[in-house]
């Protein structure tokens, strides 16, 4: 497979995900402008970060007037999974030139990772150039869609009259992200500990209660996973 052929193959797999990325980008645009960001800030946010859940987390904590350091740490915690993606793709893409690896890192969204790793594990013998082509093909439509959908959402958000309460749309957008992630008992236990911990530690200042709850929840998820492995119930 030449890099060109691989690019088109990736494009074909990635294209349908435009339909997933566009509405979510629009939701971020609406939420961010409702929270008080202007259109330029909202668009630059999406171009700089390209990670919906982390962007929504940051906006939500800014609305709660959390200290800036806490906003950054909590939103970056949501993005920690990106380091896992990076580690998992390194054996496949590590031999590419550094500028290509940097560009792929910038474009590493959930869907691009999922499409890429699935292909590379099935065809580990693809030349590295073809793997790079496949990755770029998969993501080439998704990121511009993310920017444009954010812009559309921001324009819509500034047009919604402030009297209309869209506040509870934020929890709904987040919960919609969480539902499909609850694939195993370990993920469900982690989510449960996170909720209970956040409510118990709500009194801790600087929104640090959420960090405490998140650390406990990660530990709980990992422990349940180990327990399931020991019982032979982990796939």
């Amino acid at each position: 497979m030449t890099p060109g052929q691989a690019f088109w193959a990736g494009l074909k797999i990635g294209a349908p995900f435009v339909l997933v990325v566009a509405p979510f980008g629009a939701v971020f645009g609406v939420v961010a402008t409702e929270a008080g960001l202007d259109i330029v800030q909202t668009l630059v946010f999406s171009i700089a970060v390209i990670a919906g859940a982390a962007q929504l987390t940051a906006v939500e904590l800014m609305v709660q007037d959390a200290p800036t350091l806490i906003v950054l740490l909590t939103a970056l915690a949501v993005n920690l999974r990106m380091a896992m993606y990076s580690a998992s793709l390194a054996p496949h893409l590590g031999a590419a030139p550094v500028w290509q690896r940097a560009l792929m890192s910038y474009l590493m969204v959930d869907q691009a990772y999922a499409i890429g790793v699935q292909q590379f594990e099935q065809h580990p013998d693809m030349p590295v150039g073809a793997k790079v082509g496949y990755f770029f093909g998969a993501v080439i439509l998704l990121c511009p869609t993310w920017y444009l959908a954010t812009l559309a959402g921001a324009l819509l958000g500034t047009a919604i009259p402030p009297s209309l309460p869209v506040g509870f749309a934020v929890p709904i957008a987040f919960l919609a992200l969480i539902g499909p992630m609850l694939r195993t008992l370990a993920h469900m236990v982690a989510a449960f500990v996170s909720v209970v911990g956040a409510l118990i530690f709500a009194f801790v200042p600087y929104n640090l209660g959420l960090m405490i709850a998140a650390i406990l929840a990660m530990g709980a998820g990992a422990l349940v996973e180990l327990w399931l492995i020991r019982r032979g119930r982990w796939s």
Partner: protein
Amino acid sequence: MSQQSQGTIWLVIAGLGIGSFLLRFSFLGLIGKRQLPGWALRLLRYTPVAVIPGLMAPQIFLPADGSTLPDPIKLAAAAITVAVGVWSRNVIAAMAAGVSALAVLIWLFQS
């Protein structure tokens, strides 16, 4: 966002942009082919489900100012969103279900 100045907003955007890039570039760019230890991968797997539910929990489960009980309409809309997400594995379907449920419940009980 009463106390957030324009400078703070740009600081968050820049910090989150740079930080996210470094997380994505970490192994691919700097560390190379070395694998993360198993315990680290096991903890990282749970970061989104460990952070996001807790972030939303106070808005869903704690009473609003001036009331003693959580809002049943919000609780119901939240439950429907999660249930549809778990069942359909589809983020957009879950969002649509949650927003529709919220609109219908508000229309039924608050008008």
